[in-house]
């Protein structure tokens, strides 16, 4: 069976003056079409490195990313990324930013079709009214919405989110989580989201991939989120399983994420034998 998105023995080693530093090691995961997966771990454990390898911005040292049975080492039109900061081009209006992405879709379209696509996604994330404004005139939350619209405009199959809401205040974050959930339900994309917010992961994802601490971070545990879809926040919070799941994750992050590890050299040799 061909898996839409598969991580096999994903390992990233950074050369440093004091020898190789293994950021992530042997990350294995299979992600189904239309699934919402959240990667959860402590800050700096290497979650973002994994995402950036999936996005094609970095190359894995060993192992890699397999999409539909083919290894992916470069950015592609079937993947789109929303970064931690909105990263909109400051000299373009919100609409021009989204338009730039719409023109980069896998298949070529006319100028008018691109404009229609851009407008559709601006509408979908609910920021059509500010389309003509420059990013500097918008709040951070609105900018991140535009950034989401930009990613959607590429019409990717995979949406990669790198702690997209971590810079927002909690009320705006709730609002954007709802927007994301709605967009995901409407569009049926496969989502991989990196986060360090447990509640966010439980509310949004089908599955939580829990990462151990770096160096040599790897998949420590996988948690199937039991809440029924479509979800609403109140129902999720009131669900009898909610606190069980939450305690499970916290327990993992507090006690099992830090594991004593052999030396960096042993790790390297071990990872060599893995591939």
């Amino acid at each position, binding site marked *: 069976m061909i898996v839409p998105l598969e991580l096999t023995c994903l390992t990233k080693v950074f050369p440093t003056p004091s020898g190789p530093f293994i950021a992530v090691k042997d990350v294995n995961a299979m992600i189904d079409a239309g699934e919402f997966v959240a990667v959860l771990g402590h800050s700096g454990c290497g979650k973002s490195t994994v995402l950036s390898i999936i*996005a*094609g*911005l970095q190359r894995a040292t060993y192992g890699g990313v397999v999409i539909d049975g083919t290894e992916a080492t470069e*950015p*592609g*039109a079937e*993947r*789109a*990324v929303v*970064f931690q*900061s909105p*990263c909109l*081009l*400051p*000299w*373009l209006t919100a609409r021009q930013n989204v338009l*730039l*992405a719409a023109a*980069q879709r896998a298949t070529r379209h006319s100028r008018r079709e691109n404009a229609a696509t851009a407008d559709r996604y601006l509408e979908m994330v609910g920021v059509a*009214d*500010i389309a003509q*404004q*420059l990013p*500097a*005139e*918008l*709040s951070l*939350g*609105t900018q991140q919405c535009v950034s989401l619209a930009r990613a959607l405009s*590429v019409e990717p199959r995979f949406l990669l989110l790198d702690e997209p809401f971590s810079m927002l205040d909690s009320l*705006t974050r709730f609002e954007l989580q709802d927007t994301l959930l709605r967009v995901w339900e409407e569009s049926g994309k496969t989502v991989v989201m990196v986060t360090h917010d447990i509640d966010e992961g439980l509310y949004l994802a089908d599955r939580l991939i829990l990462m151990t601490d770096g160096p040599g971070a790897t998949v420590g545990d996988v948690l199937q989120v039991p809440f029924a879809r479509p979800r609403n926040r109140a129902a999720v919070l009131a669900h009898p399983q909610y606190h069980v799941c939450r305690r499970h994750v916290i327990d993992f992050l507090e006690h099992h994420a830090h594991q004593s590890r052999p030396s960096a050299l042993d790790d390297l040799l071990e990872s060599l034998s893995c591939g």
Partner: protein
Amino acid sequence: MSSLALMRRLWRPQAPTVRHLPELGRAVGIPLLTILVFLFAWSQVAPSIDTSLGQIPGPMAVWQQTQNLWAEHQAERGRAAAFYAREAQRNAERLAQDPTAAITTLTYTGRPTYVDQIVMSLMTLFTGFVLASLVAIPLGIVCGLSTTVNAGINPFIQIFRPVSPLAWLPIVTMMVSATYVSDDPMFAKSFITSAIIVSICSLWPTVINTAMGVSSIDRDLMNVAKVLRLNWTTTLIKVVIPASLPQIFTGLRVSLGVGWMVLIAAEMLAQHPGLGKFVWDEFQNGSSDSLGRIMVAVFTAGIIGFLLDRMMMRVHRLVDYRAACGRQSDCRLRLQSGRS
């Protein structure tokens, strides 16, 4: 009183009186005061220095020469106008007598006036400046994008940047003489020589600033360009150039200033009509007015240089996307109501 106490008294800052001056007074009054002090000191010192061209002119003598130069300019314009009027009248009369008569029109060939020379200087400056920018901006962008190219170009930047325009002059003159051969040249050789020297010397600030601007583009923005798979030209036009435009214009502003400074020397030696040649001619002329006229040229060069810099500052602000928000006074308001 001990010397220490005296020093302490002398060093005591005079802040209270300054603080009581209103803002406007400080912005206008103090420069005005220093200018008056300067003029006074100048007028006191100048007559005490005797040169072979007479006394060093004081402020009044320089002002007198400014008026003279303006009057000469007006007189020359008057002569030109009279020449063309005479010619038109002559032609009209000739046509009245014989409608088939051949009409000759001549161009008035008077001496270039002081104002003409300023205009010529500015034209040479802009030619050299545009030439320099056409080379420097692309070169800077390539250097900024590629550390390999930068490593290759850097020695040349470091070695050629400090070279005086005077050192380039003989080489450029000979090269222009050897390569620009034409029976009916569109430009004077001295013009090309001056313009090229201006470009060679004003190239470097733009190259360096552009390279700096490009290499310091936010990595996140370059990552966006990568994940969107923008091709090279789109990345250049949509990301690299807009992002480094403020820095490019910082470089251009410095370059224009350097170019203006270099131009006076270049014109002086290449004998191309302009402020530099005016100074040199007056120096060779050696009349009792010469020093006064040269001083007029010095102040003209200073004021024009200042105005050019102001102009570039304005343009710089226009292209700076970081200032785009500040230009709109209601920006802060919109920032608050942005999330609706």
